[in-house]
């Protein structure tokens, strides 16, 4: 069941011919493209996580730079943003109780990164911050600005830690591979609990540590199957769903008595 494999294929293959490296007489800037063969992916109920492969192309690549391996690509698949509450347990009379909490607006539910090399080798921390690239650099806006910076920092760190621990924020070093000088393949992880909704795939191109270009595409992740229908009914027709649950229980109780009659 684990094997969801959605191949998102290059939309811009035809451009490759135009951008063949030999023709580049004047220095042209490199360009990066990712294309998705489909705008949505359906995952079934038994989904237990999978790798999502995104293909992309690098245009006007300088063959010399490419040969020296000085092109780096970072691909991010970012889930929809939602508000989230982070709570901290503290000991009160020996019992662990949720005491402090911090609400953040617009936190991406998932954030999967694939890179050619370890993040710290691609470019410097400042560039990451400017691009707000990488799980450590996403800006998380606290709902209440009045809290002390130390508290906010503590809860932001906890939020990232929990997201990483549950696999929603992940980093796949070496997940981007050049298949040829112009073609690359990125493998990002989809966690088993990947959220449904619109995900944004973004590819960042770096040349010798300098940010060159960005390209993005959208992808809709949907759940499908019987279990998802139940979920939808439970939310959209919750009263009828409740009536059904009660009737099912009574029916089971009655049938149970018929089958295993004691008196």
């Amino acid at each position, binding site marked *: 069941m684990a094997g969801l494999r959605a191949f998102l294929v290059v939309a811009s293959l035809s451009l490759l011919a135009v951008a063949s490296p030999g023709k580049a007489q004047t220095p042209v800037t490199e360009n990066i493209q990712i294309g998705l063969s489909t705008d949505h992916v359906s995952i079934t109920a038994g989904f237990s996580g999978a790798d999502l492969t995104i293909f992309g192309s690098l245009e006007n690549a300088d063959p010399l730079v490419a040969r020296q391996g000085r092109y780096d690509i970072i691909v991010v698949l970012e889930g929809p943003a939602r508000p989230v*509450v982070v709570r901290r347990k503290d000991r009160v009379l020996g*019992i662990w109780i*949720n005491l402090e909490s911090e609400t953040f607006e617009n936190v991406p539910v998932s954030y999967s990164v694939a890179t050619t090399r370890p993040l710290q080798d691609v470019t410097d921390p400042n560039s990451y911050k400017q691009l707000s690239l990488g799980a450590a650099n996403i800006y998380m806006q606290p709902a209440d600005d009045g809290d002390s910076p130390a508290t906010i920092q503590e809860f932001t760190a906890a939020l990232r830690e*929990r997201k990483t621990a549950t696999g929603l924020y992940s980093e796949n070093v070496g997940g981007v591979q050049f298949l040829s000088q112009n073609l690359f393949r990125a493998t990002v992880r989809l966690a088993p609990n990947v959220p449904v909704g619109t995900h944004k795939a973004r590819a960042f191109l770096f040349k010798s540590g300098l940010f060159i270009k960005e390209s993005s595409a959208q992808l809709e992740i949907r759940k499908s199957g019987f279990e998802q229908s139940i979920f939808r009914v*439970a939310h959209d027709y919750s009263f009828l769903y409740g009536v059904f649950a*009660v009737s099912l229980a009574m029916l089971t*109780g009655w049938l149970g008595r018929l089958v295993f009659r004691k008196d």
Partner: protein
Amino acid sequence: MGIYLPIAELSVNIFVLLAMGAAVGFLSGMFGVGGGFLITPLLIFYNIPPAIAVATGANQVIASSFSGALSHVKRGTLDFKLGGVLLAGGIVGSTGGIFVFGFLRRLGQLDLFISLLYVVLLGTVGGLMLVESVNALRATRSGAAPVLKKSGQHNWIHRLPLKMRFRASKLFVSVIPVLGLGAGIGFLSSIMGVGGGFIMVPALIYLLKVPTNVVIGTSLFQIIFTSAYTTLVHATTNQTVDVMLAFLLMAGGVAGAQYGAKAGQRLRGEQLRALLALLVLAVAIRLAIDLFVTPPNLYSLSGVDPT
């Protein structure tokens, strides 16, 4: 074999759930209890979110109490009037419970409150039952005749106003304690996902002096409707009823109950009660330990409810 629970949104082993249902069904058949107070903690131990464990537990309780109540209707050991008054109280209590449930959930204190309530209630009931049954066991061993509580003995409850006659129970009692008892059980039903039989039965016998033969049927009657109401309201306000989970538990439970009832016939009353008391205490202790042990993650994340 894994199965995905649509509301709990996680994959579980189908056989673990069937076995859990069967084991609790076996015990409930053996001891004559609904089993909600065992199902909900077991689901929590199995990493089902407490909010879903509670709502689904209430749903599961309907099946076992419906099945049990049917046989009592046939035997005529069900006081519909008494059950109806208990139920009226139950609806009020359950509504209050659902409100508190949603409020605590928004505060982030629901899980703690459920655990605390379980520890206190199961600890108390289990402890009292253990003392009572051990005393009874000792008395039978020393050969002394068990001291029977004199029925017809009146206490303060029987001096309250607004009296009502319940013919099937041969009872003339104020409606205030009956409504109050119903409300209390309804409240617990919606917050703990229990039917409440383990409190209702002793309360009816010792507080209201209802004859023992109609107690179980009447209690089951009230529990069906309170749990059904609780399930409905949880489904509409919190969307926390997982039918898939409930059905697996019911299927296992209905089958297990039959074997439990047979096994129960071979044990004596005091022994049964002592065993049940130990079981109840074990669940309470297990839940209590979780409250005190340092959790592996001090931080937790949750979405923000649109309310």
